[in-house]
């Protein structure tokens, strides 16, 4: 039983595993299946200023070693989130920390959500989704250096709460964008969001996904996620949440050794709702097996070959 606790973003995390945005709704629908409050935390489905209807079906399908999705950021919108979702999170998650995933199509959209939420209780901070590839232009902020810098600075001015920017892997060099976020005042980074992809139904000769293209997630993207996490962690000095294809403690340890302080579990929860809980347990077991007392001893403990 090693020490998994970490002090990050001004709070104590009892464990390193969180549920990834869009794969756990607003928590409630997993509450009867797993002990949510044992996790490090959860990241909500994206919240936008206005409710969004989302994309037509099919919205999800399996791909080799993973899945593709194009939900289209369907969500209840800021007002309903505060009225209907936040109260449940506030009442039911006492030790697991809540981050609100924020999405928008203009700086004002993002700023509006942050401003509207900032006074509420029941969540710790924000994960800014600048990289959802599912909606036209959705990748803009995450792949445009100026737009990203301006957005992060603007949001930094709006809130004292932890501000975590979720990076897209879909750029030549993640380090550039990671540094911009740090310089503009982000408290942390998440890496990675889905990779853009497309599947074709060869019998109907049409895209499988109603939105034509979607975002690829799951084990298939694990090496891309580990690499982006390693780059982001070495390029900056702020905490990184590692995301992408994590199924178990061994996968999570790759991210942690690469420099992730926390990890998020997404697609794996669809295969087994207990995945996140098992990931956290598996990390604990790894530490015990290797006689390591504190998780923090291994964050970024990767050794590089002599060059």
């Amino acid at each position, binding site marked *: 039983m090693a020490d998994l606790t970490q002090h990050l973003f001004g709070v104590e995390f009892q464990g390193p595993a969180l549920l990834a945005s869009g794969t756990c709704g607003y928590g409630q629908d997993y509450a009867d299946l797993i002990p949510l409050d044992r996790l490090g935390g959860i990241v909500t489905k994206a919240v936008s200023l206005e409710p969004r209807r989302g994309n037509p079906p099919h*919205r999800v399908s399996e791909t080799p070693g993973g899945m593709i999705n194009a939900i289209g950021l369907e969500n209840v919108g800021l007002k309903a989130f505060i009225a209907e979702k936040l109260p449940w999170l506030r009442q039911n998650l006492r030790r697991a920390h809540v981050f609100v995933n924020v999405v928008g199509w203009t700086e004002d959209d993002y700023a509006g959500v942050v401003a509207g939420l900032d006074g509420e209780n029941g969540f710790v901070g924000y994960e800014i989704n600048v990289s959802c590839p599912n909606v036209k232009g959705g990748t803009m902020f995450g792949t445009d250096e100026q737009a990203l810098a301006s957005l992060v600075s603007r949001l930094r001015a709006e809130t004292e709460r932890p501000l975590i920017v979720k990076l897209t892997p879909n750029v030549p060099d993640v380090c550039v964008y990671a540094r911009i976020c740090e310089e503009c005042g982000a408290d942390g980074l998440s890496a990675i969001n889905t990779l853009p992809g497309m599947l074709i139904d060869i019998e109907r000769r049409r895209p499988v996904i109603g939105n034509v293209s979607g975002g690829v997630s799951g084990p298939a993207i694990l090496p891309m996620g580990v690499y982006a996490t390693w780059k982001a962690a070495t390029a900056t000095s702020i905490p990184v949440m590692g995301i992408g294809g994590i199924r178990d403690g061994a996968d999570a340890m790759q991210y942690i050794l690469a420099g992730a302080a926390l990890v998020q579990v997404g697609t794996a929860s669809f295969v087994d709702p207990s995945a996140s809980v098992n990931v956290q347990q598996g990390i604990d077991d790894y530490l015990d097996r290797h006689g390591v007392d504190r998780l923090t001893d291994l964050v970024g403990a990767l050794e590089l070959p002599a060059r």
Partner: protein
Amino acid sequence: MESGGRRVIVTALDHQRSQRLTTGRREAPVPQRIRHRERASVVASRRVAEATVWLELESPAVAADSRPGQFVMLGYGLDSPGQFMLPRPFSVGWRSGDGRIGILLRIFGGGTHRLSTLRPGDSLLVLGPLGVPFRLDERPVQCIAGGVGLAPFIFLSDQATAAGRSVRLIYGERSGSHVFDPELVKRLTGMEPEVWTEDGSLGRQGLVTRGMDLEDDSILLACGPTPMLQAVRSLAHKHGKPLQVSVEEYMGCGVGTCQGCVVPGSDGRWIKSCLEGPVFDAEDLAWPT
């Protein structure tokens, strides 16, 4: 860790929705929703028709709480040496008195192909029972089944006949080679399905809709391919007959968290079919006109 039978009250939303899921008359209050995550072992896997397998799984918790129309997500979990596979949704096709559930599985693509190779002793991860069941009252029932859409009606007929309720089971397939052995259906349900095949190679020749009685005072329940559901619905609509349909849409989680499984509602919103379905009052859905 197995989360076993932790119980939760259905959310208000599910409750209202289930209330709306009536077939015209007032109902007994909706029971609590119970979902299990259960490791199940394959007890039997028999090829029962062309590209069709009857699976029996030892899954006591799911068996105990399932009701006809509900489904399970079937998969390998994460600790198998095999391939990563998203779980696949399947109707609960039957349950035994002693903790087994039956799945009528037709090979469609990669996942169902893989599941069709399961052998007794293999282990699966089962999530269920999921979704909203068919809603019955005192009226007689006509079940219209297309292909493996037969599955939920095997379960339903078994319970109905046990309860002495009058049920007609109208079952259509493309051809006789695809028909799930009527003898086995009889053994499982205690009743004879009325078989229709498009090529007439078994039972009566024609589309399953030809078998429907639109004049009686029964409730119509339909499960099968979307074109069939559309045909059934337009007939039911024309004759003002109450109809519940079980729909199929691609699913990610099966439990309401991913928003992957939406179908268009008559009120213009996207409805999660894994949570508010798969069984719907036909008139709550939007249909092509």
